[in-house]
């Protein structure tokens, strides 16, 4: 029996769903190996018998919250794809705009939720409800998470293949530097750039450093120990602005602030 697969989207750019369609070389095989029964909400009820549900996007409104609970009910295995679903993602940047907004942002910023709604929508701001942006694991139990902004499509494929082959799927538990070194890159620290590679979970094949750009930490921190070491090193070994590094980290790291030293 082919596994029945569904792909859902919450608040995000849907790049992760799109990434599946960008597996051009494998798409036909994939369609042969699994049955896609729901490539978004909006199908009739009888198609809600789902083995594996993939969700991209963060929970950012109360509507999202309702939906993700519904997905959880209907899917045997629920997989968060992409940084939004797995870590809250870029959406969590809005937390830093609010002081004591309704959503109680993890770190106080210089405004509040109502204020940034006003900024975008003017007087009619109250038409646009929003809550704190959260990874879906904050609302429901998630069986697997494939972080990355966007999700690494090769990892998605290897996830599906592992499940089909009966291999245990685990995310790499080492830092981006491992893959960066395997690709033979010049380490960005040699150019004086503070790269988040040493504290970030690998699996992206170090694509950012390979293309000359520092790792932005989109796959989440690799371990608390690494972040603790970063704290020591930035203070003792490097003469950098901690605020800048924190800003780097917050691009994707809001939901992991608690792990900062």
């Amino acid at each position, binding site marked *: 029996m082919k596994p029945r697969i569904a792909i859902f989207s919450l608040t995000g750019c849907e790049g992760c769903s799109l990434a599946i369609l960008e597996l051009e070389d494998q798409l036909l095989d994939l369609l042969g190996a699994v049955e896609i029964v729901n490539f978004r909400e909006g199908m009739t009820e009888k198609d809600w018998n789902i083995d594996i549900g993939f969700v991209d996007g963060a929970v950012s409104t109360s509507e999202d919250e309702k939906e993700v609970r519904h997905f959880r009910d209907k899917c045997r295995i629920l997989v968060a794809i992409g940084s939004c679903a797995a870590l809250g993602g870029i959406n969590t940047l809005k937390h830093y705009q609010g002081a004591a907004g309704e959503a109680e942002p993890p770190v106080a910023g210089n405004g509040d939720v109502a204020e940034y709604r006003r900024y975008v929508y003017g007087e009619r701001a109250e038409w646009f409800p929003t809550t704190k942006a959260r990874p879906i694991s904050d609302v429901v139990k998630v069986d697997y998470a494939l972080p990355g902004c966007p999700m690494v499509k090769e990892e998605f494929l290897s996830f599906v293949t592992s499940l089909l*082959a*009966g*291999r*245990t799927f685990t995310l790499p538990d080492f830092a981006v530097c491992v893959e960066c070194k395997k690709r033979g890159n010049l380490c960005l620290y040699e150019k004086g750039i503070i790269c988040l590679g040493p504290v970030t979970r690998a699996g992206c094949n170090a694509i950012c450093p390979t293309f000359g750009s520092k790792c932005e930490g989109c796959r989440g921190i690799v371990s608390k120990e690494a972040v603790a070491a970063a704290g020591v090193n930035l203070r003792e070994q490097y003469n950098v602005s901690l605020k800048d590094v924190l800003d780097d980290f917050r691009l994707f790291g809001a939901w992991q602030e608690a792990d900062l030293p």
Partner: protein
Amino acid sequence: MSGRRSSTILHEPPPRASSAHESSLYIPQPARIIRITPLTEMEKLFELGFLDGSRLNQQPGQFVQVSMLGVGECPISICSSPTRPDTFELCIRRVGSVTNRLHELQEKDTIGIRGPLGHGFDTHEMHGKDILMIAGGLGMAPLRSLIQYILDERPRFGQFHLLYGAREPKELLFKDDLLRWRESKDVNLAITVDRPDPQWRGKVGVVTTLFKDLSKLNPDQTVVVIVGPPVMFKFVVIEVLARRIPQGNIYCSLERRMKCGVGKCGHCQANHVYVCIDGPVFKYGQLKGMREAVE
């Protein structure tokens, strides 16, 4: 400057030329599952034979790398004796990727085997000696090969004591063998469990408690073999050393993470030794100073 003229070691193809024809160390051979016997909730016994009819020719204490192609590979001790050569047996506990899949297999399925690998027990050195064997938990698996060997070659050995400890009665491995061995005069078997169940009639306590019933050992005449979890190992060694057994007569078997099984991948390194090729069987004397091995 005269010493400068030595040539690059590998330029002239060495005797076993590493060309496209040299076979890879990493290729498993297909072996068929002849029989599967459930032993406990977690362990199953697999009897295997190579598809091409060849024999494994193992030493007791050696291991094989078992492949589920597409899933992975893991090291498993051979638990049958070379004196029963037509097939071989593996006792496998389900704990992860490969072992879970192995447990789903049926008789007649094929798996991949590389081996025998590693350094087993030196049975020649044991000839003529009294044997004291202490097994803890899954440690019984590699020892069964040696036990069978001793029983099959019984006249070559002196007294044979076998102490076996498990956490619970239901975790005892090879219950049929145990029954047979308990009846046999060839082996002096004692079993204990940490946590008895209502049906348990035997001894209760950690395996070291069995030492008090042991008759006096002759230190120079006795070979001691210890295989079990690291915690057990330490306490048992204390008991054994207290009985003045020379360190060169104490054998043990180590477990480490392993990937290649042939001394390359580095995973099983404990201090300077590679468990896969220098072991898994070591003499206690070899481990002294190897802090990682005994700590």
